[in-house]
């Protein structure tokens, strides 16, 4: 489907051009001086792909690119599981 290809292309190739400026909320937090209130409740090591950096490769562009690809595939997998449950439930009826 066009949508899946578009999602993969955007996540893998367009994402590397993304601006690294702070986003609206971060900027407001910086300007008003409460950015330091941000806490790391769960240690960074507990996350699979922290900050969209795919750690298994060294190249920065690939780190972003593979992070994007992983995200798209993880989300598709979530809905794939939903689909399987839906089908299984349909058969029982």
């Amino acid at each position, binding site marked *: 489907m066009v949508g899946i290809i578009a999602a993969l292309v955007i996540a893998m190739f367009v994402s590397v051009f993304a601006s690294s400026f702070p986003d609206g909320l971060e900027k407001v937090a910086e300007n008003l001086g409460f950015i330091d209130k941000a806490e790391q409740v769960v240690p960074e090591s507990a996350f699979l792909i922290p900050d969209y950096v795919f750690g298994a490769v060294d190249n920065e562009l690939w780190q972003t690119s593979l992070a994007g690809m992983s995200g798209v595939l993880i989300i598709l997998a979530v809905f794939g599981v939903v*689909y399987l449950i839906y089908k299984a439930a349909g058969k029982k009826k």
Partner: protein
Amino acid sequence: MHIPDGFIDLKTAVSTAVVSAGVLAAAIYKVKSYFKAKVIALMGVMSALIFALQMINFPILGGTSGHLLGGALAAIVLGPNAGAIVIAVVLIVQAFIFMDGGVIALGANIFNMAIIGVYGSYLIYWLIGKISKKRTIFLISVAVASWLSVVIASFFAALELGISGTYAMGITLKAMVGVHMIIGIGEVVITVAVIAFINKIRPDLILTRERSL
């Protein structure tokens, strides 16, 4: 505008999480009534697409960036109930896999972007759609709904920061809404482009065009 942990206090995090969970449960219940293989596939693709589009931070004035939230996009294609679920899935994956948005603040982020952003924008879209079904009016309703979804979400994010005592309410509201009025323009451009594209190649995929969901 993914709120990190530490920006909002526990009472705000818990109360928004409870409301979010309730609304999402109701949304799942509603979506089940028109659940078909096609709807699940479309939800999956929209969710993946919005995740990808959210990665694209575009620069705005003053060293700030913004990115798509996708609430209006999801709501207009899938209806508000399926749309809310789709955005919630994106936010959950971002919080637990990508460290984007706090884990304790997840309920608040879902509340702002997946609930307020989605149902709010759908309401505007639906109201304008009452006037006429013409293509121009349709695209105007998409533009207005997507701009407002970002602005309302930022208003609620600021409200939560204010209630938490993170910073003075009035100033936070003014700053957050101000910057998101500009970021919202990016949301409009992307949302209108994607919707106009889908409307051209596969108008049947915009589920809200024919009936209300």
